């Protein structure tokens, strides 16, 4: 008989009560109704367990660190037991050859049926030698494991967009997962790291219902369809025109909006302002720092975290931080000067041609 999640949880000593609690918590974070909790419970009791292989490429492991700190200890327990059985080289018990053997076995046994979760990304330069897990370039391992996967989850900004290792000039040619795995559905869960509750909810959704509804950029709609700015608790100060000008001014103490000190909330899609972090305790804006836009593509290449408009010219062109304003005002000033000069020249030309005309007229 094939094993279900419920069988697995019971075997691991999780009570039915805790199991149901988990189902309703997850349903709530997914924005599902009460019936949703029952659906999740039913799916977990009846559907065969779907193995997950979790690979680590070029990364800092912050996604895993976040993940194992999901707010409700139960959530992480449950989800971890869904995952760790198969393969996650960072947190699995086995290591070395033993671990690699387990990977082979999972791939063989669950061909076409396992979920591949990728944390970090593959660097392509010099045949991928800048990331070598288990003696082989990561890009090869990624291609190999992805070949027989059912779907791929791109954990974090590294796997989704490239993040810091793909920032200019990107010496190792790190690329996001969807540039290498092109023939499988890829679910992007960006963020540096993503919010733990979002990660567990995405995994649960995937295991119970299948691929969640995605937006045009491939992110699960339920967590990434609105901006930080749309649900930010400092938003009334934004609308009122009350801004922090410096981090030690009166406005900062009053909790005003951080727009003028570079908050990227208005251009960042993520759930931080609603789900928050560390069991809902806080999130960057709540602790007084603007959003840096870590879940957006290219956020490292957009210049200062403390200015509203990004740097758009390379160093050497108009100083290190030529913003749209500097470029635009220079263009307007140069044009203005040209116009004044042209007007002056025109006036001189006209008056000289007039006076020669007058002279001609006088002669006649």
């Amino acid at each position, binding site marked *: 008989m094939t094993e279900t999640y419920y069988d697995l949880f019971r075997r691991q000593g999780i009570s039915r009560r805790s199991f149901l609690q988990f189902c309703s918590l997850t349903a709530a974070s997914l924005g599902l109704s009460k019936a949703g909790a029952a659906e999740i419970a039913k799916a977990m009791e009846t559907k065969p367990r779907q193995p997950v292989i979790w690979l680590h490429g070029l990364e800092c492991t912050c996604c895993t660190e976040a993940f194992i700190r999901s707010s409700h200890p139960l959530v992480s327990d449950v989800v971890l037991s869904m995952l760790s059985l198969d393969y996650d080289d960072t947190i699995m018990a086995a290591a070395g050859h033993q671990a690699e053997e387990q990977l082979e076995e999972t791939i063989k046994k669950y061909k076409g049926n396992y979920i591949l979760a990728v944390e970090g990304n593959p660097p392509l330069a010099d045949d991928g030698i800048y990331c070598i897990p288990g003696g082989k370039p990561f890009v090869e391992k990624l291609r190999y494991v992805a070949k027989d996967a059912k779907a791929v989850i791109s954990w974090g900004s590294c796997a989704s967009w490239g993040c810091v290792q793909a920032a200019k000039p990107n010496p190792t040619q790190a690329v996001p997962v969807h540039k290498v795995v092109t023939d499988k559905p890829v679910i992007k869960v960006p963020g540096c790291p993503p919010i733990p509750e979002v990660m567990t909810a995405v995994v649960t959704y995937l295991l119970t219902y299948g691929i969640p509804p995605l937006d*045009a950029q491939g992110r699960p709609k339920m967590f990434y*369809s609105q901006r930080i700015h749309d649900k930010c608790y400092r938003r009334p*100060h934004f609308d009122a025109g009350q801004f922090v000008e410096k981090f030690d001014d009166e406005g900062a103490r009053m909790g005003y909006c951080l*727009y003028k000190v570079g908050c990227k909330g208005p251009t960042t899609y993520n759930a931080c302002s609603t789900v928050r972090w560390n069991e809902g305790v806080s999130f960057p804006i709540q602790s007084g720092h603007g959003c840096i836009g870590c879940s*957006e593509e290219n956020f490292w290449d957009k210049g200062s975290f403390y200015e509203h408009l990004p740097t758009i010219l390379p160093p050497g062109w108009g100083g290190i931080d030529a913003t749209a304003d500097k*470029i635009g005002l220079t263009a307007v000033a140069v*044009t203005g000067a040209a*116009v004044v000069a042209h007007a002056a020249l025109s006036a001189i030309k006209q008056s000289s041609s007039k006076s020669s005309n007058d002279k001609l007229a006088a002669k006649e």
Partner: protein
Amino acid sequence: MKIEKHSGRVIEGPHENVYVFEAPVRLWHWITVLMIIPLVVTGFLIGDPPSSIGGEATFTYEFAWIRMIHFSCAMIFTVAFLMRIYWAFAGNRYARSLFLPAIWSIAWWKGLFRQLFYYLFLKKEPDSWVGHNPLAQTGMFVLFLLGTIVLIITGFALYAQQSAWGSGWMVAFGWVHTLFGDAQAIRTLHHLSMYAILVFMVVHIYMAFREDIMGKETVVSTMINGIRAFKTKGH
């Protein structure tokens, strides 16, 4: 009066008055002027808001009003522009010149250089033009028309962000976000294209008055009564 086909240059007199700008074009022109001014002012304020005001957030709504003015003017600006596009099809030949510089025509290119040399003081006598001269057409097309199109598209893409993915606005403008990858790039492009319009305005206003004073035909009054009149009757 004989007019060169694609360039609009008068090649043979006698000069007669021509009705160039029909009412919809003039109306559009002045609505655009009236809307661009508040759009630029509020745009600057959105990019770099005025200093904070104190008090309870409940009782003030300053920045929201600034944005509200920007969005309202943007809507009028856009509707007027759409109407203008319609008129390019419905109106006379001069209604099309903003949208279609005749870059395939040799006469047009010659006209462009004639006018360029004239402005560089390398050619003494100005020509007479009925519509826009090719040089003016180029400036209008590149700075004004492209600038406006980019402003409208990026502006609406930013506006759509207030609604979530999946909403009607995002269905209509989500592709801009997919195209640019991140909304920060769209914001910057929106901000930059404002300067294209500002540069255009500086040149446009100067040229309109200069030609009115020094050129051979009326310019400023043409956008008021629609009639291009020539100062030199006959040839």
